[in-house]
């Protein structure tokens, strides 16, 4: 029997290859029950946040704009790292951990266009899931808050005033999965990544900031530590009184201006993402 040569295919256009890679990564997440449980918890907490926001307002008054901003930011500054970040951490580290620890890298690399595409798709998918979760969560908070306020007969707040702090939170949360994915690639260990990304923002930076503060000429470097800078960027919902300003600076760990704080965190995200890309390219598949 004479074999028939199969038709030679054309290279897939870049845009379509990216779309395929992102769909692959999304289906990786969507195929796990744990993903939907985590997203369900996020939705539930958003609803609760809306209700408590409405109930915490003074009787007959609308919630204050800074209270609304704090609620939409999942109380990121006071908690140092928002609960939403913890909830989304497994979704960002999971795909990489499965690939590098369980040998699934060969499936990814032999399915999507290239390692670059595979890594880029993980970052894009993680960022997109975070963005959708933040926006959907805010809408649920708004809905639950408005409904509760209506039921209690209180006026609604000016939601639009919370817009800028919410957009900064959205930016932070879009960067967060990028950082998580990149650190997971660098450490090649899911538990290690979770510990590093929990301990460093909560404790590591505080200690590093204190140590830097003791070194002559380096004291201001503590302000530029990435998560402290991010908190400074997330704060600034309103113009605080002088006595509050000092407390807020201590809480954030940095007194950088809002825009500078966010810029530092975005730059940190880019650097970590590039380091992760370098490491991802050098990994071998089991």
């Amino acid at each position: 029997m004479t074999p028939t040569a199969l038709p030679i295919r054309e290279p897939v256009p870049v845009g379509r290859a990216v779309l395929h890679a992102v769909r692959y990564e999304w289906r990786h997440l969507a195929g796990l029950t744990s993903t939907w449980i985590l997203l369900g918890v996020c939705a539930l907490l958003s609803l609760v946040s809306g209700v408590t926001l409405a109930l915490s307002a003074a009787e007959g008054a609308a919630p204050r704009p800074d209270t609304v901003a704090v609620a939409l930011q999942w109380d990121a500054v006071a908690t140092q790292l928002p609960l939403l970040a913890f909830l989304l951490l497994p979704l960002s580290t999971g795909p990489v951990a499965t690939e590098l620890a369980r040998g699934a890298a060969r499936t990814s690399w032999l399915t999507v266009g290239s390692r670059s595409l595979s890594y880029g798709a993980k970052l894009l998918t993680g960022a997109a899931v975070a963005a959708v979760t933040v926006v959907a969560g805010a809408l649920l908070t708004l809905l639950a808050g408005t409904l509760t306020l209506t039921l209690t007969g209180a006026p609604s707040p000016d939601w639009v005033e919370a817009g800028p702090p919410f957009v900064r939170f959205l930016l932070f949360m879009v960067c967060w999965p990028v950082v998580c994915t990149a650190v997971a690639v660098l450490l090649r260990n899911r538990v290690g990544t979770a510990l590093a990304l929990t301990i460093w923002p909560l404790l590591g930076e505080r200690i590093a900031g204190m140590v830097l503060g003791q070194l002559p000429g380096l004291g201001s470097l503590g302000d530029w530590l990435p998560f402290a800078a991010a908190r400074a960027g997330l704060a600034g919902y309103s113009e605080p009184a002088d006595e509050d300003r000092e407390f807020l600076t201590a809480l954030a760990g940095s007194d950088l201006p809002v825009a500078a704080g966010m810029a530092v965190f975005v730059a940190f995200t880019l650097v970590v993402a590039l380091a992760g890309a370098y490491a991802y390219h050098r990994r071998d598949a089991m």
Partner: protein
Amino acid sequence: MAEFLVARGLRKEFGGKRAVDGVSISLKPGVVTGFLGANGAGKTTAIRLMLGLVSGEGEAVFFGRPLEYWRNPSGMVGAVLGGVAGHPRHRVRRHLRMVAAGAGVPDSRVDEVLEQVGLTEAGAKRLSELSLGLSQRVGIAQALLADPPVLILDEPANGLDPHSIRWLRDLLLALAREGRAVLVSSHQLAELEQLVDRVIVLAQGKVVAEATTAELAARAHGRVTVEGPHVEKLADPLRELGAAYEATGPGCAVVTGATRFQVGDMAAEHGVTLHWLHEQPPSLEDFYLSVAEEEFRIS
């Protein structure tokens, strides 16, 4: 005939030891190539180098271009490397749909390949629940999803029962006859013998032999079994002919280096009665053992 895959000068070291040393391979359409070698010969590493899964020296081009150029590796090459690799909590059908999305093929293709590998019922199982044999089948289904022109299978018969091995052999032959280039590495030489058109033998990281099955048959003499009351009288004349005579029991011997026609003629010439004369053609195993003898001694 154009080559679908050409790999040149593949090299890889692990801890200062050369695992793959200058391996060059080409795969042609419609041809099943067997990739033979003992454990540690470098087959798996060579395959992973070809697929770009591990870093090393050399290059592998698919249709004249590196795999990355096509931006659709699964549409170019289907690889089965020790069963399916994915998240253990994924169900088979969901895992394959994920791969289908990455490969840009419709979800309906998933059910087609599941049916093709006889796993329609197992689609709801989690990957962690699969036996080795089922995992191999899912790996094969995954490799076929995007209908690639090149198939590379590393020890695909591992974990398969005899019925499944026969099914796999028929499937691979059918896929090759459709015009695909197929590379199969295996230790199960008997199975490869009924499958491959061509063999490449790897020993200590190097290609030590490469031949088509037709060339093998022409190259080597078979083993002739002779039985008769006085077959020992043939020993000296056969040795003079350059053949090897080995008595294997009373009135029984094996001759190598001569055809059954030569042995029969010689028996007639010397008046030796024969009760049995049988020539076994050279097997793939004979060929493999002859070229990889040194490697076997070491391992």
